[in-house]
């Protein structure tokens, strides 16, 4: 599904990604954990075309997409739900979702997408005429995810979906991730909440200072002593 080879990204002189290689297979949930500033967001932003890599390769469904314009990558079926949700605050929930389906041209397909989304998030249906900026943090996160699903992506990148949410909402988000995977969407998940993330993932990568420090089955990573100490806060 997604293959990344030796990716290097810079912010001016700051070398943020120092040769990242990683693979996401069809149907998997892969999680990316790592401390603040490790380069997780930089990685997904580079994959989605929001920032450009200086070297290396991103291949999605056997097509090279390195440094393509972001909107072209969305059209191919790869979507990012960005850190901080980034909903359009002054637009209604419905318009936000309509924008999620911006690349779809088929009316019927868009109608179905609304139906699926409202089924997954009944709250959003209730609030569909409300401005997105007036939703609670949890609802905005649901909207961000629902919006990304509107165009039926093959691969969904989720950047810290549980950030700043109350514990019971966090649980809902993780249940949702399992549900979305069941619907056939492949997921690359970034999480601070490494514990929960490792539970819902098949495989995991640990990012350290712009490099891949460790990779393996989620179970194995969760059992690793160093990971338990640094990222899971266990002894």
């Amino acid at each position, binding site marked *: 599904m997604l293959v990344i080879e030796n990716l290097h990204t810079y912010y001016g002189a700051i070398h943020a990604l120092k040769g990242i290689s990683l693979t996401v297979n069809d149907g998997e949930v892969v999680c990316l954990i790592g401390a603040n500033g490790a380069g997780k967001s930089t990685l997904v932003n580079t994959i989605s075309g*929001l920032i450009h890599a200086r070297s290396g390769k991103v291949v999605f469904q056997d097509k090279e997409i390195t440094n393509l314009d972001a909107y072209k990558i*969305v059209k191919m079926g790869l979507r990012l739900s960005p850190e901080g949700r980034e909903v359009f605050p002054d637009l209604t929930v419905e318009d936000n979702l309509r924008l999620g389906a911006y690349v779809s041209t088929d009316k019927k397909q868009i109608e179905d997408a609304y139906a699926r989304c409202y089924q997954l998030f009944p709250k959003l249906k209730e609030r569909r005429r409300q401005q997105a900026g007036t939703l609670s943090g949890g609802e905005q996160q649901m909207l961000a995810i629902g919006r990304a699903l509107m165009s039926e992506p093959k691969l969904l990148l989720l950047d810290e979906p549980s950030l700043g949410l109350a514990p019971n909402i966090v649980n809902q988000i993780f249940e949702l991730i399992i549900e979305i995977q069941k619907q056939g969407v492949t997921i690359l998940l970034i999480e601070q909440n490494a514990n929960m993330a490792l539970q819902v993932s098949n495989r995991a990568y640990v990012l350290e200072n712009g490099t891949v420090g460790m990779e393996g089955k989620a179970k194995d990573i969760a059992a690793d002593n160093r990971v338990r100490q640094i990222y899971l806060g266990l002894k």
Partner: protein
Amino acid sequence: MLLQQIMNGVTIGMTYALIAVGYSLVFGILRLVNFSHGSVYAFGANSILFLISLNIGIIPAILIGILLTGILGVLIDKTALEPLRKKSAEGITSLITTIGVSSVITNLLIARLGSQKKAFPALFPTGEIIVGSIKFTYTQIGMLVISLALLICLLLIVERTKIGLAMRASEQNITAAKLMGINVNFVISFTFFLGGMSAAIAGTLVSSYYNMAYPNMGYTAGLKAFAAAVLGGIGSLPGSLLGGLVVGISESFAATVLGSEFRDSMAFIILICVLIIRPNGFLGKKSIKKV
């Protein structure tokens, strides 16, 4: 007398509104005051006058001129502004660039057509309708109807179409808009196109109203329309209409009450007074911030 002044002010104010929407739409997305817009307006009027002189018929000349002016708007963005965005240049760099572009366009017009004022044909039949104490000339009625129709079209485009939704999304958050699959550069080009076309239509109406066009005509009109856009709340289409009307009407009064030499400063006097009380203009959003 009073009503007549208002009526005259409304007529010219509507054309300010048409120019103001160009500032407003572009500012909405790029947070950039496009100071080349006045010269685009002048280009519209002058190119249409030139096309009319080629004897291709008035209507085709106007339509082609409007289209060309829209394309000029797109070209300004593509050649001068988009490269700066790609390099993430500071806002001030783009601002100065638009001032430079303005000089270039005005100069090219002067070089090609000469700087003198030239007669612009009347577009509407002479004649008037008198209602009570107010006199409506056909020209005024024509200007009002066309301006209003155009403003309604623009509003419908922004509020009711897919590209309009993309414009509103880009206005709020360009990064998120890209993540929706929106080609933001296309949206920006489209915005410049709409602004250029509206300016050309305004230029045609004003030139026909005063029976003249000249390359420097965009300078004062551009500044006043900019004042109107800020007055109404830059980024808001209804704001542009309101701002345009306030500027038009106050000018009309200033000219009769204080004398015609006060007309051109009226827009700015009002602008300064209103901004002290309402820093975001009449209908401006509370805080326009760059995301």
